[in-house]
């Protein structure tokens, strides 16, 4: 036990370093329930994506498979890496976040799709750096907040942290990518919340954000007429919000997606139309079916039972992740896992919620389900980090076995 304090002062020489463990220990350190549930979700996702992309030449199922393959490798690598080593690179991660988010704005490699400059082309592959940046952001937020050892009381320090967390979000809003921006904001707030920030500060932040949002919405019309262009919110963003409040406002335009999404889900019924029989997406009524509206394809093909299965799987996955957060050896690990947890909760809520009319429509993909290799990599990397936190949850035991080995 005397070893522990010594180890604490120098994380790099932590006893939990996995490199010296035997093969049996390595596999014992796997969180099997989590991995099994995650793999079932991934398999389910591949099935639905295969069905949604089989009729379309715009999407390639092989590319999705490739994303899963690369993701699995990345996951295994991260699992073996001691996550706590990453806690020291706060400023590096911060810089990496900003670079990734500004990359699409560069000439030549930047690509504009649907009015957002969110993609880059490297070696003929289209990548969305904003997705990869999510991982960096989670790690950055965790390492930033973990320094406060669970007691972020000072107003000045809170403001400093909040400001630092907002910088990458402002960068991504330059693309602009409101969806990713919202995800990052949620991750940041979760880090502050779990990191022990004073309750009053959190409440004050939420109140101010809500007030600013209402102010922006109300002043937007005034500013638009005053300056003659879209100053705060784009028209389509405002439309989405208004349509969310009343879907009959614009059935041909912004309301169209919502209406078609609900038709797809509703026509699935209890047991669905069967694999490959999703007429709403196959006949093109549902836009972006394999990406943002993949849940509609699932709901149409497998019905309420299929949807419920996914929800149960997701719930199981998230509770298993929460369990990892509870068992993390240090606060850094806890914050990394809760950051990932917050990202997934929010994306699932927003994606499924928008398709059934509970949330406004935003382009946020569904974890492990949506077509898109960048986000698939993010999910596997997240899974890898969680597995790493789990694998390194028990430094004492490792240290004991290690010192025992050393004695031998």
């Amino acid at each position, binding site marked *: *036990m005397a070893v522990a304090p010594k180890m*604490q002062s120098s*994380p790099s020489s932590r006893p939990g370093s996995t490199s010296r463990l035997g093969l049996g220990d390595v596999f014992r350190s796997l969180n099997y329930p989590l991995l099994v549930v995650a793999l079932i979700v991934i398999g389910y996702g591949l099935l639905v994506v295969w069905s949604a992309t089989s009729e379309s030449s715009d999407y390639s199922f092989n590319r999705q498979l490739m994303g899963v393959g690369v993701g699995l490798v990345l996951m295994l690598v991260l699992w073996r890496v001691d996550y706590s080593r990453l806690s*020291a690179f*706060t400023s590096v991660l911060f810089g990496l976040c900003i670079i990734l988010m500004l990359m699409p704005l560069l000439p030549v490699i930047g690509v504009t799709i649907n009015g957002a400059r969110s993609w880059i082309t490297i070696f003929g592959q289209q990548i969305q750096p904003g997705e990869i940046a999510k991982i960096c952001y989670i790690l950055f937020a965790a390492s930033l907040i*973990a*320094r*406060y050892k*669970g*007691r*972020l*009381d*000072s107003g000045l320090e809170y403001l400093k942290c909040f400001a630092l967390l907002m910088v990458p979000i402002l960068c991504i809003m330059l693309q602009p990518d409101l969806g990713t921006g919202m995800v990052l904001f949620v991750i940041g707030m979760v880090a502050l*919340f*779990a990191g022990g920030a*004073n309750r*009053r*500060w959190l*409440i*004050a932040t939420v*109140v*101010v954000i*809500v*007030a*600013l949002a209402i*102010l922006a919405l*109300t002043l937007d019309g*005034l500013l638009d007429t005053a300056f003659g262009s879209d100053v705060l919110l784009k028209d389509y963003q405002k439309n989405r919000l208004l349509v969310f409040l009343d879907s009959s406002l614009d059935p041909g335009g912004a309301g169209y997606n919502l209406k*078609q999404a609900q*038709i797809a*889900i*509703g*026509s699935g019924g*209890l047991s669905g139309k069967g694999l490959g029989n999703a*007429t709403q997406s196959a*006949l*093109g*009524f549902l836009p972006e079916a394999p990406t943002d509206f993949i849940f509609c394809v699932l709901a149409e093909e497998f019905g*309420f039972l299929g*949807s*419920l299965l996914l*929800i149960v799987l997701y*719930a199981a996955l*998230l*509770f298993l992740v*929460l369990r990892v957060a*509870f*068992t*993390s*050896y*240090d*606060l850094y690990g*806890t914050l990394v896992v*809760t950051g990932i*947890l*917050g990202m997934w*909760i929010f994306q699932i809520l927003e994606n499924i919620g928008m398709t*059934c009319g*509970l949330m406004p429509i935003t382009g946020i993909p569904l974890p492990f389900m949506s077509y898109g290799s960048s986000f698939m990599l993010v999910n596997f990397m997240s899974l890898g980090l969680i597995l790493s936190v789990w694998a390194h949850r028990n430094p*004492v035991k490792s240290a004991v076995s290690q010192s025992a080995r050393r004695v031998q």
Partner: protein
Amino acid sequence: MNTYALAAGIALSLFALLIGGFFVLRYLLRSRRKKNRGIYAPSLVRADKDRVTDGEQLRGSGSLKDRPARQGRGRFYAFGVLIAAIFGTLSVKLWSLQVLGHEEYVRLSSENMTSEVSVPANRGRILDRNGNELVGNRPSITVTGKRSLAEDTALVHRLSLVLGVPLGIIRRNLLDDSEGVQSDHTIASDVPMEAVAYIREHPSLFPDVNVESRTVRYYPYGSLGAHVLGYTGPVTEDFLASQTGEEPIPYQSGDSIGIEGAESTFEHILQGMHGTRTYKVDAAGNPTELISEAPPESGNDVVLTIDASLQRETDTILRDIITMVRGDGENVNCNAGVILCMDVKDGGILAASSYPTFYPADLSRGISTELWEELNTEESGYPLTNRVVSGQYPAASTFKLFTSLAGLTGGMINDDTTFYCDGYWDDYGEDWGQRCWIYPGGHGTMGLEESINQSCDIFFYSVGAAFYEQWRALEGEIPVETERPNPFQDYVATWNFGSPTGVDMPGEAEGRIPDATWKKDAFSDTPEEAMWQPGDMTNMCIGQGDILVTPLQLCNGYATFARKKAVTPHVFSHVIDSEGDAVVSYTAKSVEMQPKYEQAHHDRVLDGLKRVVAREGGFGPLPVEVAGKTGTAEVAGKDDFSWFVGFAPADDPQYCALCLIEQGGSGSLVAMNGVIQCFARLYGVDAGEITIWQNRNER
């Protein structure tokens, strides 16, 4: 967004900012005095300052109970509650969408993906009595577009080049509203395949230009029998709007409907029923798969009593006669006429020619305003008018047949009745004197048969005067002249004059048999002229004055005389379905109003009619005896109209034919030639050259 909402929004956000600011301020003031404990247990919090160093952080001990998240468990349990709440809400929402709202969304889904396309049915054909196709259908590749395309000058130029149609025509077709303002306008019909291929391969050059394969009416013989056949046109928006949905045949925009002639009369037989194809469509509306199909039902074919070869003959004869009369130089205004030939036995019309004529094909494609105006000018002679049934003329001397029968039946003419003709008749005084056509000569003492033969007017004036006296004698019983019975007019009406014959051709006129009542109405503005005068009666008896008949009424009257029984004239023979089986045959309606006369009277009049033709040499080479009557109608302000109507064989009549040449000049042989040629054709002999130049002064 209205002003109130705006003000409320600003107020609310300012209020929220104030509250937020209050908390910030309150905390800043409080935090100076008292350090917050934080969410994690103090035992774990090793640094007592907020400043932190790299790498140093909060860690748990070896025991799982000491882990950071366990210490801050309130906040971490919140995640669990959040997950449960979110997934619970989503499940409830999905339940309501997928289980409760299932049926409604299934309906919306199938509405989304299916599209019904109407498949037009073929219109039935019109055949002649021998099965020759008079009107058929043929496919026509048509280029159509919306009216607004006319504004795109570059597009109109391209269309002009590709279609080989002048610019002005394309613009005019696009702007023409005869097919309805909403529908696609026909830019060009019967477009060559190369042009179609070019347009289809360059959709970007021809936006909103459609190429359709349409079925159009096809008239193998051009203008043959145009007035009998009529024409079709697109249904009008007004007609579609007036449909109640209860009709046996529902029409749709773009359908053709019969407008004139047999196309109109037999519309209910010819028109087919639309079929429906249900397609699965994608979001862009492109059909991807045929789900179900209700095939269209073609309309049935109508067989007419018309004999196409005879019709062609009469069309040609009529045109030739009129051309020759005009070329003669004496009657340059001659521009119209009628030849009508009926089967005496059953009243079936074998040929009905009306001149001037038109080409139905030009009209069936949709009539352009220009063409419509051109067909309705005085110079063109109103070619769309079917003079056979719509033209009304003084019957002239041909009417003497009916005057004779009226006189014989009424007792005005007996076996030995004669009148003396000195060319001038003044029984009602010098002021009311009337001439015979032969004036300044005279016919001498005339009996009935010879009066018919030589068409002596004096004889029939005398008959008319006797009828007038009979009518006036009623003055003692019925002083008001319009209330008295009219023995002559009533008798003539039994021969179907003054009322439609009921023929199955549209646009039939009534004709007019004037009497005191009619005259009072007609001259109501000048009451001093409204009295029924003896001259009105005597003029009517020679078919002049105010009497009007249609060629069909006159021919029908002669045919009725020939068969001694009235039947309704008709062009309808039977209906055959798509398998060629006759499904509906003509059933003769019994005519209640039958003319009455004695056989002896019939024989005397027939004798007169035979003499008319015999005088002309028995119609040359015809193998049968013909009975008939000439007529020269005087029309105010126009040259005389020439009539001839006759039937053959005289003693066992089979055919009845009529010819009228408007403004053909005095001399009834002009019209007689039309009938000779018609009979020659029917009996398969060559009547030789038209011989209209003989006896130009004969009546």
